[in-house]
């Protein structure tokens, strides 16, 4: 019995392939949006994990030379013989590849990327035969240097070999760059300074630093992914409901002919499952395509922003296959649950006319209005009180859901007002008709609103980030030229060359220490107008710069202030000495705390830390000639001289990449929302004819009716857009002021971008127009006989 039923159900698609197409495409688009965002996230995350595991960056304490120069490997042997479990690392650039030499017998277990090595490899690795394990993208550059084996587990652009081999290849025979400190140490050991005074210990970072930095970007993408999921659910719901409405008559006939309800529902579930799997596969593949098109940009964005390596090549990961298929299947089933339930409840004898998608009666509308109001109230309360990441996201969810539920109620109200205030009969009919269509269109309009709100929110956030960052660059990169020196000798050469040619030489020196429990970089700044003029303080005492110059004051960054809840007027200890906080400054994107004290106090507290970078203030016109003069007169390489304008340009280029990704995702979301509208209108079109026939009979031409249909959809889209704007801004505010603070400890100022919003609104209108065009044209071409039939068929 299953077979004839399934055949009958499937014959519908064979007869009406267009409906099958819209359903499949709808499902596939929703899946694609979801899996595309997920793919970008997953790919980037996986790349960080590899990057983080290569060299266990951040996992282990390290001993690094104070002077930054490679040191003799006997230091390693001496430390081992003194009871320190350390492991040597030598690293350097070879043909553009980062080559890392490790010593596998002493390296802490989690450090090694050569898990896959078989014993033969390892013999070669140890015995100095030149075995190199390299990331797949690094293999070519190393060919001819030994036996190079591609290894997916190694970070992009990186290769790993035995320390002995690496020393040879890098020309660092007998030298090492740093020592990794095993977390397991014997119970007694002398202090490092006794045996290796030239080394200083660099504490392990809690959590990979790269990960923390890039998390900010990924949180945004994740939020976008969630929104796209919601939008996707709406569209899937629309697509499924359409499929069910269109086959209502057939379902009735099948039941009348003796198909048991349970069997029928079961077969329909089976059919949906099959459809979901096919569409899910198509959608996931589309997502892959989207991701692979966007990923080069994302990779560039992350590399530029944070120096994190993301492989450009996208790997088809099982995890997002599974997640894509799961979203297609779960989304389909969630969306289908209501339709199946209605099929189950549908009396066999009820009318075979397609009904509206969601019949929101007057009473339902009121309930919905109250629920929406309650959710919005929860959102507002949380906005005032939310402290953590979870409550931030709950607030976002309440806001979005509340707004979505409120939309039909608000639209009905507005349309009611318009209807009441129109004099013209056609106008009255137009508004009344629009109101009547509202329940059926509301899901699609909700999807459109959420899509627009998401786009407004994300655009605002990204643009605000950009503006803030530009301001931040102006503040931080105030000097015209930055120069890094290797040692004191170079520094002295530099002073000799520049004296008299620059307005000021500002040393940049820092040390690391925990302040109030937060890992903090402490800077010793010279008292100079550069800082006084350019630094924006979020909070400040009466004369912050004077207090710092006087030696007793300290400025701290927002991260440190928020994390330790210390503000202006509080005291902190730096290297054991008390300072009073005189100001708090914005420090965007930095995961660490930062504190600024006077350079003389700094020199007294950290006598070992000598300035290695200098900012030079001079006429921007003279930067070029001065660079050349320094290059000729000192041993400082050009690479160590950085033109401030260059940094700014590079930083801004990175943001423009981010914009590419964001706008591509914007267009995609709107496409999906437009598709939802299209499908709702197609569903409606069958029942539109009887509704429009009286208007036609009373003298409106079919072309007029078609135009009015188009106009009505566009008007509803505009109205939806008007409601979406404040929602999007609320979304952006929540992301910037609540979620970002909870996740990263700094708050981004929010800026408004009316032109962007107008463009977005235009795009949304275009999407709605395109979606409504075809149904309207179809309507305009409805043969008069079909309209006449409405009257003759009336029973």
């Amino acid at each position, binding site marked *: 019995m299953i077979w004839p039923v399934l055949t009958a159900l499937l014959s519908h698609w064979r007869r009406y392939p267009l409906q099958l197409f819209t359903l499949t495409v709808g499902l596939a688009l929703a899946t694609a949006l979801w899996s595309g965002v997920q793919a970008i996230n997953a790919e980037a995350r996986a790349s960080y994990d590899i990057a983080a595991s290569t060299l266990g960056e951040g996992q282990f304490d390290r001993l690094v030379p104070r002077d930054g120069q490679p040191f003799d490997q006997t230091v390693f042997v001496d430390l081992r*013989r003194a009871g320190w479990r350390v492991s040597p690392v030598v690293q350097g650039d070879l043909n553009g590849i980062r080559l890392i030499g490790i010593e596998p017998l002493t390296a802490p277990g989690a450090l090694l990327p050569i898990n896959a090595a078989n014993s033969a490899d390892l013999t070669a690795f140890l015995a100095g035969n030149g075995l190199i394990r390299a990331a797949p993208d690094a293999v070519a550059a190393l060919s001819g240097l030994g036996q190079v084996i591609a290894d997916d587990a190694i970070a992009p652009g990186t290769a790993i070999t035995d320390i002995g081999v690496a020393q040879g290849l890098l020309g660092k025979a007998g030298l090492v760059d740093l020592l990794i400190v095993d977390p397991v140490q014997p119970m007694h050991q002398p202090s490092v300074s006794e045996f290796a005074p030239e080394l200083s210990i660099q504490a392990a970072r809690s959590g990979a630093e790269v990960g923390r930095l890039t998390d900010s970007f990924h949180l945004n993408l994740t939020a976008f992914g969630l929104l796209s999921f919601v939008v996707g659910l709406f569209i899937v719901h629309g697509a499924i409901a359409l499929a069910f409405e269109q086959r209502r008559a057939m379902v009735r006939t099948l039941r009348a002919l003796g198909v048991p309800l349970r069997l029928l529902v079961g077969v329909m579930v089976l059919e949906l499952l099959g459809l979901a799997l096919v569409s899910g596969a198509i959608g996931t593949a589309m997502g892959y395509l989207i991701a692979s098109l966007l990923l080069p940009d994302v990779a560039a964005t992350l590399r530029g922003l944070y120096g994190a390596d993301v492989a450009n090549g996208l790997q088809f990961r099982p995890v997002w296959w599974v997640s894509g298929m799961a979203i297609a299947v779960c989304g389909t089933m969630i969306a289908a649950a209501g339709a199946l339930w209605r099929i189950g409840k549908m009396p066999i004898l009820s009318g075979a006319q397609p009904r509206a998608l969601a019949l929101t009666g007057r009473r339902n509308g009121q309930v919905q209005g109250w629920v929406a109001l309650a959710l919005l109230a929860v959102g507002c309360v949380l906005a005032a009180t939310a402290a953590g990441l979870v409550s931030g996201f709950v607030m976002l969810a309440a806001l979005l859901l509340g707004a979505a539920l409120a939309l039909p109620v608000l639209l009905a109200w507005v349309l009611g007002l318009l209807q009441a205030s129109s004099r013209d009969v056609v106008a009255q009919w137009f508004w009344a008709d629009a109101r009547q269509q509202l329940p059926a269109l509301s899901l699609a309009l909700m999807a459109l609103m959420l899509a627009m709100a998401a786009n407004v929110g994300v655009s605002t956030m990204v643009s605000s980030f950009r503006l803030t960052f530009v301001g931040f660059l102006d503040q931080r990169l105030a000097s015209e030229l930055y120069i890094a020196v290797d040692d004191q000798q170079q520094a002295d050469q530099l002073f000799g060359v520049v004296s008299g040619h620059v307005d000021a030489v500002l040393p940049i020196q820092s040390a690391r220490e925990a302040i109030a429990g937060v890992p903090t970089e402490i800077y010793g700044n010279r008292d100079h107008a550069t800082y006084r003029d350019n630094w924006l303080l979020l909070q400040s005492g009466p004369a912050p710069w004077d207090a710092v110059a006087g030696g007793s004051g300290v400025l701290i960054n927002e991260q440190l202030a928020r994390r330790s809840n210390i503000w202006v007027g509080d005291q902190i200890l730096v290297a054991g000495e008390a300072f009073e906080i005189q100001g708090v400054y914005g420090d965007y994107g930095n995961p660490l705390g930062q504190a600024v004290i006077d350079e003389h106090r700094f020199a007294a507290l950290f006598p070992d830390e000598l300035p290695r970078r200098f900012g030079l203030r001079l006429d921007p016109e003279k930067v070029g000639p001065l660079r050349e003069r320094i290059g000729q007169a000192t041993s400082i390489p050009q690479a160590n001289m950085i033109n401030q304008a260059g940094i700014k340009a590079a930083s801004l280029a990175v943001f423009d990449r981010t914009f590419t990704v964001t706008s591509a995702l914007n267009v995609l979301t709107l496409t999906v929302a437009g598709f939802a509208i299209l499908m709702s209108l197609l569903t409606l079109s069958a029942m539109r004819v009887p509704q429009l026939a009286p208007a036609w009979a009373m003298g409106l031409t079919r072309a007029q009716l078609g135009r009015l249909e188009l106009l009505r959809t566009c008007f509803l889209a505009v109205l939806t857009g008007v409601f979406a704007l404040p929602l999007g801004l609320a979304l952006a505010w929540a992301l910037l002021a609540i979620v970002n603070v909870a996740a990263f400890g700094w708050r981004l100022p929010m800026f408004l971008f009316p032109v962007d919003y107008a463009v977005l609104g235009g795009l949304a209108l275009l999407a709605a127009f395109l979606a409504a065009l075809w149904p309207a044209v179809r309507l305009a071409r409805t043969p008069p006989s079909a309209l006449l039939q409405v009257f003759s068929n009336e029973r």
Partner: protein
Amino acid sequence: MNVRFVFLLLLWPLAGWAQGFAGLGASDPSFARPQRGYEFQFPRDHGAHPDYRIEWWYVTANLTGPDGTAYGVQWTLFRTALGTGDAVGWATPQVWMGHAALTTPDAHHVEERLARGGIGQAGAQGNPYAVWIDEWEMAGSFDAPRLRASGVDFAYDLALSAKGPIVRHGDNGYSVKSAVGQASHYYSQPFYEVAGRLMLPMGEVAVTGQAWLDREWSSQPLAADQSGWDWVSLSFDDGSKLMGFQLRGAEVFTSATLIRPDGQAIPLANGDLSLQPLELAHVADRNVPVTWSVRVPDHGIDVSIVALNADAWMGTSVPYWEGPVQVRGSHSGVGYLEMTGYTP
């Protein structure tokens, strides 16, 4: 799988039982082979023999605290050559592995170290006498070395002092390991007296006692079918000592040396020594005999040995059991028991 584990599969293959315990049965003709009739040359032979594939310096000590508590200390340095040749620096084929253990009646502390030869992190030389890996060392003079090791939760620092002569096992130090002729060079210094201190999580303990050094090198000491061994070194209260082992294979092969109080060595032939398990303990997911009957009927020795701490499992890259024992029966005394090749 940990890389180090993979590495040790190669060096001392755990899975390769068919090749004898820890691969000691595999043969490689390019390494030097022990020769019958070789005369030890000291102090040179106290140092490393890189032409041979494997070598070890093996110290076990039975110690007593001020309150009479018994302790055991193990200090071992293994050397293995991944290949022949005399490359220097990181390219050397020499790899070193150190094991240190400290056994109390209710605890057993273990630490392992690995090192490459060629850069000074580990090594062994006869003159001046020094055997070391990282901060662990046995150094000073062969007759009075200082022995030190430390781990996460223990450390020891012992002064050793030889009160008797070096003992050569087998045929003047040529020790046969199987019926088909596998052999090693093998000598001992079983007469060390010890004074020093143990650092335990609870604090420091001053100890005295005796220690036994085994020195052995070879390129293939086991036959391919031998899967492990049971080895004892016993010091009887009357001043005599017994070193004995059995190699478990298709047939059990035994070898032993009875040492008179004056240091005279009496080599015992295959079959003269009988080692019979009396009691098993469940250790590290396997059953390991921790009480044995040890008999040398020709010399009136019939004792049982009981582990001080049955849990003396060496959970190192190559796992085995090694711990101090108490001797009861025809003779009484103390000693060390080592058992390899017991699988879960």
